[in-house]
């Protein structure tokens, strides 16, 4: 193969690799169900990264495969070519400029979605989430109700107010995406707006001791009427 075939080869094979990656990602979605407004923002940042990175991966792999086919030594005594320094300098400058621009663009996308997640502290419903080894407890101050199951109302902004009695725990519902540690000595708020009704699992996501694996709770996203009904009963 001549060097002239490099660009068509990389385009073709890179296209095939990224097409394959796209097919796999469609068949097996890279993220679980998105069940909150915040999940939409996380997924938007994620998808942006996935597209750019999939393309980078495909092009680099295609280039590597090309080099391994086109530039193999047939006899051991063969030697490669020395560079033309000035052309090398051009590639270096172009590479660094390009990667800097791409990095800053990705950082800007991330910052944009981060702002959407953390900027607005307003909430409709407060829920105090108290973590301890190895259980969760929920308190609804507006309704003066306690429970060991987390009820949330579809479409409302919930302020999850996290505290811990002993060591660090973390609040994570994969379908809601965003995650926050519960830290002893601190009170940390986090806004979640569920959008899809159903039952989910709240997982402790910070190693907190021997039964960490089993520190789970049920999360139930319900309509307004059922939420109100549950708030009246001790559950």
């Amino acid at each position, binding site marked *: 193969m001549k060097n002239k075939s490099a660009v068509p080869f990389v385009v073709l094979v890179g296209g095939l690799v990224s097409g394959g990656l796209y097919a796999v990602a469609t068949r097996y979605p890279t*993220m*679980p169900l998105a069940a909150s407004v915040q999940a939409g923002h*996380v997924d938007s*940042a994620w998808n942006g990264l996935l597209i750019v*990175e999939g393309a980078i991966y495909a092009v*680099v*792999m295609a280039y*590597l495969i090309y*080099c*391994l086919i086109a*530039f*193999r*030594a047939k006899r051991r005594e*063969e*030697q*490669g*070519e*020395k*560079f*033309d320094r000035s052309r*090398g300098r051009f*590639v*270096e400058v172009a*590479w*660094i400029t390009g*990667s*800097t621009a791409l*990095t800053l663009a*990705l*950082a800007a996308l*991330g*910052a944009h979605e*981060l702002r959407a*997640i*953390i900027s607005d502290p307003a909430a409709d419903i407060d829920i105090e989430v108290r973590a301890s080894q190895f259980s969760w407890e929920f308190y609804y101050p507006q309704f003066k109700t306690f429970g060991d199951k987390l009820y949330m109302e579809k479409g409302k902004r919930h302020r999850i107010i*996290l505290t811990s009695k002993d*060591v*660090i725990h*973390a609040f*994570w519902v*994969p379908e809601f995406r*965003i*995650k*926050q*540690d519960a*830290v*002893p*000595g*601190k009170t940390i708020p986090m806004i979640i707006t569920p959008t899809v009704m159903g039952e989910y*699992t709240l*997982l402790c*996501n*910070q*190693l*907190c*001791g*021997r039964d*960490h*694996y*089993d520190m789970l709770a049920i999360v139930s996203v319900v309509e307004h009427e059922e939420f109100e009904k549950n708030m009246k009963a001790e559950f």
Partner: protein
Amino acid sequence: MTEFFAAFVAGIAVFVAGYFGLAAPLGPQAACVLGYLAALFVFLGVVGGAKALRTYATGVEPDEKHGAARYFSFDVDHKVVGIQYTAAALVIFLVGGTFALLMRLELARHGLQFLTPDQYVTVMSLHGITMVVVALIATAGGLGNFIVPLQLGARDMAFPRMNALSFWLLPPAVVLLLASPLLGGLDFGWTAIAPLSTQGTTIGKQMFLLAFVTAGFSSIFSGVNFLATVLTMRAQGMGWARVPIFTWSVIASSIIQIMGTSVVAASLIMVTFDRVLHTSFFNAALGGNVLLYQHLFWYYSHPAVYIMILPAFGAVLEILPVYARKPLFAYHIVAGALITITALSFIVWAHHMFTSGMWMLLKLPFMVNTELISIPTGVVFLAALGTLWRAKIRLDAPMLWALAMITNFLIGGLTGIPLADAPTDLHLHDTWFIVAHFHFTIMGGAVFGFFAGFHHWFPKMTGRRLNEALAKTQCALMFIGFNAVFIPLFWLGNHGMRRHVADFPAWMDPVQTFASFAALLVASSALVFAYNVFSSSRNGEPAGENPWEALTLEWNAPSPPPHGNFKTPPVVTREPYDYGVVS
């Protein structure tokens, strides 16, 4: 004798604690700390430190040991220390790999199989910390100690006795770690996040902290030594623009070892104080700050991954031009990139803390700083990919390992960006996505890079060549097995698989079982490797001075190099990668 002394000192400490009526949990903990410190000094003295000090004081050289005994003594020759480090790294790698297999066995299906939850966490913690030690010492400590002085044209390291000391600090640390399951185990992973690590009275936890601090001192000494060696002992004519890239990478990682390790040692000593002396650095109820620990810990422990990966970059970039038969592309810029990574590595630590509850706007600078690291890392890739262009590639085993490392690290690097990106990290943090990511960088990058360097320099270290067919088989098995284990785990992490847990929902079974079977491929590659090293180091083909036709100085010395390395001090008259023909 060491044990008797330790027991004696421990006894005194318990007696004193009892005399003052201190609470029972305090006594044994404090006694263990004091007993260990005493035992450590006695051990270092007995193993040869005392003799080395006497030699230093009197100026009389001791009789040199010969044969295998050298490798079990406090030998100050950098080549012996290099082989000691390499062998130690491989032994610990086997131990840590066994822990990994135990975990994969437990995780083969949902529910608990043969480990209780706390046994699982102990095994996981030990896998983590032993592999951290391996990744820290294998390339820089093992290959670096052997090769760096040779690449510089030096007789030895700048501080040979300190070199031996930094190696001999490791065995006590490792023994202590492996003893901890017998002493109650540990439940806090390798990160020992407070306040989980300050609570509980099992002695295993305390042993972990002491082992970590001991290994930390080893790392600091080694960093100082490398830096002094490169600064003062380069051959005549070796300006900074002629220092081989592997040595550049060891400079970079040494700077991090010196600047970072003392901070993590301090934070672990603070945890020890919280445990033993009832201080309250990290106890919120008594006015301490829980997040402080994470800041101190990650201030070192993020740069620590660059201690692991930079020498692997260096080894791979050292190897590529030799087997591509052309100069290293962008050589001067990539040396600068390694130093840039070093500098940036100290302003990114809080990307481990996006979910920790620190001030939310801090997420932004740490996110951007972290993503900036992809620019110098991109330059490393530019050098690797550019070197292959119009090359004449010889696909010998070291080259195969180097190419495998590049493909692995491509995945490792790209999957790091969603973790640096604050919004996506809020989902991915502490899931198996990050487990898969750092295995791709540390196992796929640092360990594959170590194996590339090991295969490249084995002829220099032993005078014999490894069996090529076995080396390539090992590379293929490990590459396929490793990728098959960890690629599905990215996906599983995104879908709710947490770190640090022995149990998971039943629907994850097919993926987990697949990963467990694939782990057997990795294990089998280790057996191939062990056989290859044993048989080739005895019966391998004699290598000669320069089997790969490389140009750096280590290939001017005999294989293996004699005491003092070079017959006449070498003089450098050209760049280290002057391969190829002018087109």
